[in-house]
């Protein structure tokens, strides 16, 4: 595979996974974390109040899917980059 084709495939993969992460974060069914929080309410008869609040999503909750996408895209970029580096340098081993 030549370098240009590899880069194009890599970019498509990164953008594809980032989009998938955004869609999943946006449309996901109720998460197990939320169900566990509800269960804590049941177990304590609704008496337990969280004693700290999360700092919140920068720019508002609507940005959460985008930030999940950034996380997925950044992670896949590093993953593909490292595998590419290794592949390129295997002849030196």
């Amino acid at each position: 595979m030549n370098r240009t084709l590899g880069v194009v495939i890599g970019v498509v993969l990164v953008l594809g996974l980032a989009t998938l992460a955004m869609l999943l974060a946006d449309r996901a069914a109720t998460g197990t974390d939320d169900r566990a929080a509800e269960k804590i309410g049941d177990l304590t008869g609704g008496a337990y109040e969280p004693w700290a609040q999360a700092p919140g999503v920068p720019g508002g909750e609507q940005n959460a899917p985008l930030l999940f996408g950034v996380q997925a895209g950044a992670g896949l970029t590093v993953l593909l980059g490292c595998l590419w580096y290794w592949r390129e340098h295997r002849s030196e081993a």
Partner: protein
Amino acid sequence: MHIMEGFLPPFWAALWFALALPVIAYGVVRIRRLVGEDRELLPLLAVSGAFIFVLSSLKLPSVTGSSSHPTGTGAGAVLFGPAVTSVLATIVLVYQALFLAHGGFTTLGANVFSMGIAGPAAGYAIYRICMRARVGCCTAVFATAAVADIATYLTTSTQLALAFPATTGGVTASFLTFAGIFALTQVPLAIVEGLVIALVFRYMIAIRGDVLERLHVLRREVPAP
């Protein structure tokens, strides 16, 4: 498996911090030593962290109607063990607490303990057992990743059960309740996670098996006398 901000009483939040911090500190020392000895391990370290970053960003729907996400810690557990993986998981959990309101800073110790220490430790134990039993590397990696994932969620269930025991049945009943929420949802996701990590390992073995041999991830074949 993220316990939300403020959802653990202060005593339990502090206890899990106290248990997680020494492991994270040891992990930092291990990373410095490993990278100091062999710079070629840096890409592997990055790959291990990237796995956690990518897989924990995907909220996947599961058979129970709930959604959850894989942990991605299996790769780090196989390559570097639980201490190093705890450092990588901490970075991801801080990102998610800071930017996604997912998890939290008061519960960071508990979340690092479950996702970065207990899960990878269980996975690492399975990996060693598989290696002793001379199971194939990819099968061992699959088992490691799947067990690390499930063990993470069982640990979270334990943490919540200890903090919120049921009025009837106490900690055990509460554990079964939380495990019912987490573990059942997680089984299919753990299998998918195991398959993905095993496939990438297969590729890594093909391109740089020598580095994996140096880390004792692969057995060095000794020529017959």
